[in-house]
């Protein structure tokens, strides 16, 4: 984020005649909320959107206004919630599966020079391929239940965790290793007190990246072979040209994505507070 631009904070060169703007800034600063301005922008855009829809009489099935979206969303809340929990469960299970396989896997590869030399280039190559293309095959194999969604999600989440895990477990300053050896650290102490803490910041980068992919995996699998879940619900709703409900469903999906991302970020702050706090001082 680039919020630390010195030109923003102390804009002393600006003409002093802009008292009104300074006043607004002072109020915003007094409120102490950096989010006030984006929220105002957001509300402004919503009003603008509604006005355009109303003035130009855009047909509702084509592009509904925010009021309609909110109304339909509230109306359909029970149904959305029903599908919401399905998608949330698929995404969470898939993510967990990826973590459970990828973290130990990355540890093994990082500890074995042979495995790393043979597998790492291939893993990087696989990371760059569009893995969603596997979704139809997974569904052909596993059918229409929860399992194919979990597997597709896990496939998407796997690589970022694996690669960052390998990088994390590998990238250690040799001097730290020598130091702890000469202090007589045992192998398990080396792992718990040196290697793992050293790897965690990079590992969490991968975990956060994967967190934003989890929902994508579940939704794509539901698009293709679903009988339940927000992805399936969205497709059926759009087949009936109910764009207002469709946008409400997308909003619901976004909350899952955000919950995943901020959930992992919260865990990160719990697990490696020493790193997160340092990063903040440095300004990321």
């Amino acid at each position, binding site marked *: 984020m680039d919020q630390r631009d010195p030109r923003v904070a102390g804009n002393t060169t600006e003409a002093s005649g802009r008292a009104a703007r300074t006043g607004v800034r002072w109020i915003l600063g007094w409120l102490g909320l950096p989010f006030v301005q984006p929220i105002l922008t957001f509300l402004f855009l919503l009003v603008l959107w509604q006005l355009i829809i109303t003035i130009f009489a855009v047909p509702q099935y084509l592009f509904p206004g925010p009021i309609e979206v909110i109304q339909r969303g509230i109306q359909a809340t029970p149904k959305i919630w029903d599908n919401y929990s399905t998608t949330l469960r698929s995404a969470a299970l898939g993510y967990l599966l990826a973590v459970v396989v990828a973290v130990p896997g990355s540890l093994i590869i990082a500890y074995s020079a042979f495995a790393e*030399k043979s597998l790492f280039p291939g893993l990087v190559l696989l990371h760059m391929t569009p893995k969603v293309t596997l979704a139809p*095959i997974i569904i052909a194999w596993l059918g229409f239940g929860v399992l194919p969604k979990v597997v597709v999600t896990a496939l998407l989440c796997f690589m970022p965790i694996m690669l960052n895990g390998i990088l994390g477990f590998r990238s250690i300053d040799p001097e730290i290793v020598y130091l702890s050896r000469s202090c007589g650290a045992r192998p398990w102490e080396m792992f718990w007190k040196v290697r793992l803490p050293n790897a965690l910041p990079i590992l969490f980068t991968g975990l956060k990246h994967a967190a934003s992919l989890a929902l994508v995996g579940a939704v794509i699998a539901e698009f293709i072979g679903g009988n339940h879940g927000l992805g399936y619900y969205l*497709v059926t709703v759009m087949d009936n040209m109910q764009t207002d409900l469709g946008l409400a469903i997308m909003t619901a999906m976004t909350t899952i994505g955000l919950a995943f991302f901020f959930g992992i970020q919260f865990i990160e702050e719990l697990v490696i507070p020493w790193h997160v706090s340092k990063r903040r001082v440095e300004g990321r």
Partner: protein
Amino acid sequence: MTSLSLAERAREASYPVGAAVVALALWEVGVRLFKVPRFILPPPTSIVTEGLSRASSITPHFWITSYEATAGLVAAILVAIPLGLTFSYSSFLRRSFYPLFVFIDEVPKIAFAPILITWFGFGLEPKMILTFIVCFFPIFLNSMAGFSAIEEEYINLGRSAGAREWEMFWKIRIHSALPNVFVGLKMAAASAMTGAVVAEFLAADRGLGLFLQKALSQLNMALGVATIVTMWVIGLAFFYGMTLIESWAIRWHVSKRGGRREIL
């Protein structure tokens, strides 16, 4: 990067190539040994023969999907970089919209697919637009960060050396922003295929996504896997093509950078 001799490079490369060969051989032998039915998992050799024998019917779909992905990516580049530049010049725009864009970036972009198909039909447009949406955000956010984060000292140096406004722009701003811009471009290039193919899965009259689903519905798993390999080749070509452009456009930066540090 340290320059390796040819023999050393060959030795380095022999490990991953060997691993791939072993994996394919295990697959081939395992499928034949355990008599796995062809419609569940075909051996690699029959995927290759099936893919080659049907190459003439895959090719037109190959071009369609490549076209959709390219058009979406190029449109995203043309819109996102100038927009990122504009935002870098205005702190008002940045403070008003930047958090909003970060928030919208968390919306699962592929969820626009059903809506786009309702609006634009079964043709190529919804695929291009979805690719555009998928590619836009990484380019925009990274190029804005790149154009904004210019060291004050460079600007001061340029000023005191008497650089004109356009010189400041071309020689300082663009120069120092490009590494960041390319981070976004590479992320976008890696996901361009995803956008095109997901939209094709949902509704299409042409393209590899449709071809894949047809093959699978005929239980022709060998052709299906061959189609997926084709999609992966396009995806990798996009990513490595962009990496190539990067290493040409900012060679001063790429050569300074360590080899494996970056994982998207």
